[in-house]
C-alpha cells in the first residue's frame, strides 16, 4: 500500500490545526479551572528567593526567628527557598493566608511565632499539593507575617499564588479548587486506567501487536505520574518520589517503542540504545539516591546525576519528536493527523505551563491555578488509545469476516464432499449392482445358456420335438430373465423393444400382423428386475396364448400410462374364449400379476377375439 502524502493546502490546514488545537484544549481547561478565587488585590508578592536554602531571609532588619532546621548543613544543601514577607496592616476582618498549590514545603510565621509548618526541611520532603489555609488572627500594628516555601534543587517552578484574604473567601476558594483539582483528575485517571487496562487486554489477546503493550505501559506510567501529583504523601520510596524523572524517562522510552510500532517505522537499533542507556542511567540514579541518604558526597553526585538525567531526557524527547516527524512525512492519514494535533496540544499546553511556572514567583497573571500538561497529555494518549481500539476492532472484524468466509468455504467444501461421498456411495451401489447383474448374466450366458443350447442340439439329433420345445421354452424364459436384469434407461420400453425384436420373426413366420402401440411418455427408469420379469412373463404368456390357441392373424400390443398405473394389453382377433376361463395360463398370469400387485383383466367372448389387459401400479414396481 502506498501511503498518500499531504498536499500544500492540507499542510497549511495542518499548521492552523497545530495552533488551534491547543487553544481549544486550553479554553476547555480554563472553562473548567475557574475556582472561586480571591480578588487579585489580595495577592501578595514574594520579597526574596534564593537558589540555596537559607535559614532566614538575608534582608537587613529581618528579625530573629526560631527556624527548626537541622544543623550542620551548609549552602551546598540542595534545597531552594522563597520567602514572602509583609506587615500586618490594613487587613480584612478574620484574615487568613491562602497558598494555592504550593508544590513545596510551607512554613508560616507571625513575627517569630510559627503558625504553620509542613515539617522539617530534610529528606524526605513532604510537598503540599493542595491549597493551604492559615488563619492569621487579629491585626495589630507592627506585626509581620513571614512565609517560606522550600523545595528540592532548582527554584524553577517554585512559588505559588499567595493571598491574604478573609477566612470565608479562603475556604470557598479551597473548596472549589479541591473540586476541580481532585475530582476532575481522578476521573481522568480512572478513565485512562480503564483505557490502559482495555489496551493491555488487547495486547494479551494479540501479543504480536506490541504497540498495544507499549501503550498500556505508557498509560500506566502516566497514571503513576498523575497519581503522584494528586496524593499528598506516597507511602513508599520517598527519596525517589521527589525525582519522578525516572518515571518520566521510562514513559519516554515506552513512548519511543510505541511510536515506532504504532507507525511501523524502523528505528529498532536506536530504540535499543535509548532503552539500554536509560535503564542503566536509572539504575545508577537509584543507587545514588539510596547512597545519598546521609552522605554528603553522594548527595552531590546524586544532584549532578539528576542534571545529566534531565539532559538525557531532553535528548530522548527530541529523538521521539523526530520519530513523529518521520511518521507524519511517511503517511497522510487520520493517524498522523491526530498525532499532529496531539503534539500541537502538548506543545501548546507545555508552553502555557512554562509561562505559568515562570510567572508564579512574580504573579504575572497567567490564567489558571495549576499546571495543565499532565492533563493535556491525555489528548495524545486518548487519541492513540482510540486509534488502537479502532485498529483492534477493525482487525477483529476482519478476522471474524475471514473466519466466516473460511467457515463458509469449509462448510461448502464439507457439503460438496458429503454430496460427492453420497453420490459415490450411490454410484458404487449401482456399480456393484450392475456388476452383479453382469456376472449373473455371464454365468447364465456361458453356463446355463450354453448348456441349454447344447441340450437343444442333442434333442435335435435325437429328434425329440417335445424335448426341443421344452428346451426352447426354457431358453426363452432364460432370455426374459436376462433381459429383466439388463440395465436400461427407459425401463419397460427397452424390455418391450427387445421382446418385440425377438418375436417379430416368429410372428412373421406364423403370418400374424402385429401392431405395437407404445406410448412414448411411459417412463419407468427404475423398474425393479423382478417386476420387469413378471411383466415380461405375463406378456409372453399372453402372446403365446394368442399365437397357439386364438387362431388369429392380427395382434395389437399396447402400453400406456394412466397416472400411476401402467396399462399393458394384448389383443387378438382370434376365436376368443369364455371370460371366466382359467386355463391357457390365465391363472398363471394372475398369480404372477399378484406378485407385483398388478391386475389381469380378460375381455373375451367366443368369436370376437381376446383382450388381456395388465394393470400395473407403478409404486410397486420401482
Amino acid at each position, binding site marked *: 500500500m502506498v501511503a498518500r502524502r499531504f498536499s500544500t493546502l492540507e499542510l497549511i490546514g495542518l499548521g492552523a490545526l497545530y495552533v488551534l488545537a491547543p487553544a481549544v484544549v486550553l479554553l476547555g481547561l480554563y472553562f473548567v479551572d475557574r475556582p472561586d478565587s480571591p480578588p487579585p488585590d489580595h495577592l501578595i508578592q514574594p520579597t526574596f528567593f534564593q537558589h540555596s536554602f537559607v535559614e532566614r531571609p538575608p534582608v537587613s532588619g529581618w528579625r530573629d526567628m526560631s527556624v527548626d532546621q537541622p544543623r550542620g548543613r551548609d549552602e551546598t544543601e540542595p534545597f531552594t527557598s522563597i520567602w514572602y514577607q509583609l506587615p500586618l496592616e490594613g487587613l480584612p476582618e478574620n484574615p487568613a493566608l491562602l497558598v494555592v498549590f504550593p508544590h513545596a514545603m510551607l512554613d508560616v510565621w507571625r513575627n517569630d511565632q510559627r503558625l504553620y509548618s509542613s515539617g522539617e526541611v530534610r529528606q524526605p520532603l513532604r510537598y503540599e499539593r493542595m491549597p493551604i489555609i492559615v488563619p492569621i488572627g487579629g491585626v495589630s500594628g507592627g506585626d509581620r507575617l513571614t512565609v517560606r516555601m522550600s523545595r528540592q534543587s532548582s527554584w524553577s517552578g517554585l512559588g505559588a499564588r499567595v493571598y491574604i484574604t478573609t477566612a470565608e473567601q479562603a475556604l470557598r476558594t479551597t473548596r472549589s479548587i479541591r473540586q476541580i483539582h481532585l475530582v476532575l483528575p481522578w476521573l481522568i485517571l480512572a478513565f485512562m486506567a480503564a483505557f490502559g487496562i482495555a489496551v493491555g487486554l488487547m495486547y494479551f489477546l494479540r501479543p504480536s501487536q506490541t504497540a498495544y503493550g507499549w501503550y498500556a505501559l505508557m498509560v500506566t506510567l502516566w497514571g503513576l505520574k498523575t497519581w503522584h501529583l494528586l496524593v499528598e504523601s506516597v507511602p513508599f520510596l520517598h527519596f525517589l518520589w521527589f525525582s519522578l524523572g525516572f518515571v518520566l524517562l521510562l514513559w519516554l522510552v515506552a513512548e519511543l517503542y510505541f511510536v515506532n510500532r504504532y507507525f511501523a517505522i524502523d528505528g529498532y537499533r536506536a530504540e535499543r540504545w535509548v532503552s539500554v542507556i536509560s535503564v542503566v542511567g536509572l539504575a545508577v540514579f537509584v543507587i545514588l539516591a539510596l547512597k545519598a541518604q546521609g552522605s554528603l558526597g553522594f548527595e552531590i553526585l546524586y544532584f549532578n546525576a539528576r542534571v545529566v538525567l534531565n539532559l538525557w531526557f531532553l535528548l530522548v524527547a527530541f529523538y521521539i519528536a523526530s520519530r513523529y516527524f518521520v511518521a507524519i512525512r511517511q503517511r497522510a492519514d487520520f493517524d498522523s493527523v491526530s498525532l499532529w494535533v496531539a503534539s500541537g496540544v502538548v506543545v501548546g499546553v507545555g508552553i502555557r505551563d512554562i509561562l505559568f511556572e515562570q510567572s508564579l514567583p512574580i504573579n504575572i497573571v497567567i490564567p489558571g491555578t495549576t499546571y495543565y500538561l499532565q492533563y493535556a497529555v491525555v489528548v495524545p494518549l486518548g487519541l492513540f488509545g482510540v486509534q488502537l481500539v479502532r485498529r483492534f476492532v477493525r482487525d477483529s472484524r476482519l478476522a471474524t469476516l475471514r473466519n466466516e468466509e473460511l467457515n463458509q468455504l469449509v462448510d461448502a467444501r464439507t457439503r460438496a464432499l458429503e454430496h460427492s461421498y453420497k453420490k459415490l456411495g450411490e454410484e458404487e451401489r449401482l456399480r456393484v449392482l450392475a456388476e452383479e447383474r*453382469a456376472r449373473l*448374466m455371464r454365468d*447364465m*450366458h*456361458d453356463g446355463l*445358456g*450354453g448348456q*441349454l*443350447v*447344447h441340450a*437343444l*442340439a*442333442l434333442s*435335435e*439329433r435325437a429328434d425329440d420335438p417335445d424335448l426341443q420345445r421344452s428346451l*426352447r421354452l426354457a*431358453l426363452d424364459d*432364460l*432370455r426374459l430373465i*436376462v433381459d429383466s436384469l*439388463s440395465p*436400461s*434407461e*427407459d425401463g419397460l*420400453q*427397452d424390455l*418391450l*423393444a*427387445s*421382446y*418385440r*425384436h425377438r418375436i*417379430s*420373426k416368429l410372428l*412373421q*413366420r406364423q403370418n400374424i400382423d402385429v401392431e*405395437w402401440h*407404445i406410448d412414448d411418455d411411459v417412463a419407468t427408469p427404475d423398474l425393479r428386475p423382478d417386476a420387469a420379469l413378471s411383466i415380461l412373463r405375463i406378456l409372453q404368456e399372453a402372446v403365446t396364448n394368442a399365437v397357439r390357441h386364438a387362431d388369429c392373424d392380427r395382434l395389437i400390443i399396447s402400453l400406456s400410462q394412466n397416472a400411476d398405473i401402467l396399462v399393458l394389453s394384448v389383443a387378438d382377433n382370434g376365436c376368443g374364449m369364455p371370460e371366466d376361463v382359467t386355463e391357457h395360463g390365465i391363472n398363471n398370469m394372475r398369480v404372477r400379476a399378484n406378485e407385483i400387485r398388478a391386475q389381469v383383466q380378460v375381455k373375451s367372448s367366443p368369436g370376437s377375439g381376446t383382450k388381456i389387459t395388465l394393470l400395473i401400479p407403478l409404486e410397486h414396481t420401482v
Partner: protein
Amino acid sequence: MAKKTQVFILEDDEQTRLSLINRLEREARFEVCASAGTIGESVPLLKTQRPDVLLVDLQLPDGESFGLIAAHTERAPDVPVLVISVFGDEKRVVSAIEAGAQGYLLKDDAGEDLTDAIDQVLAGEAPISPAIARHLIRRFQVASTGGAPKETAPRQDVLSEREIEVLRLASKGLTYQETAKMLGVSVNTVGTYTRRVYQKLAVSSRAEALFEARQMGLMSVDE
C-alpha cells in the same frame, strides 16, 4: 451350379457346433468348409481355408475371440464375421463389432433365421438388436434418446441423420421391414445403414483389438 457359400465355424461346444453345421447344410447353398473349437485350432485353418463368412463364438476355452476377429478383418476385410451367442449380450457383441464383426446370431436360431442372417451379411447388410442399437446410440453421442452420453464417442466418425434414425428405430424393436416402411427406403438400404454404422465404429476403435491380436500372436507385428 453356383458356388456354395463357404462357412467357417468357431464354437467350442461340439454338440452346438454340429447342430449349427446341421442346420446350415440343410440348405444346399451352404457348406461348412471348416470348424474349430478353440482359437488356437482356427488360426492355421483360417490360413488355408478361404471361407465366405465366419461364425465365431466369443467365449472360447483359450480366450475371447476379439483379437481373432480383428486379425481376420484386417487380413480379409471382405469376409464378414458373425458372432454367435446364446443371448444378445450386447456389450460383448459391441466389442466384437469394434473388432470388425458385422452382426450376431443366436445359437438356437431356427435354420431360417440363421441362413437369413448370413444372407443379410453377405448382401452387405448387418443384423442389429434393440440393445445393440441403444449401445451404439450412446457410443455415438446421439442426442435422440435425450440422455447424456455415457462414453466417449469415437471422434472421427459422425453418423448421418439416416443412420441415427435407423439406430433409433432399431432400438425400439422395429424390424428392418418396419423401419424401411417408415423411412420409405428398401429393406436392403436399412441393412446397409447398419453395416455402415458398424464400420464407422470399427474404424475408430479396432486399434485396441488389433493390439490384442498381436499380443496373442494371431498376427505378426509387421502385418
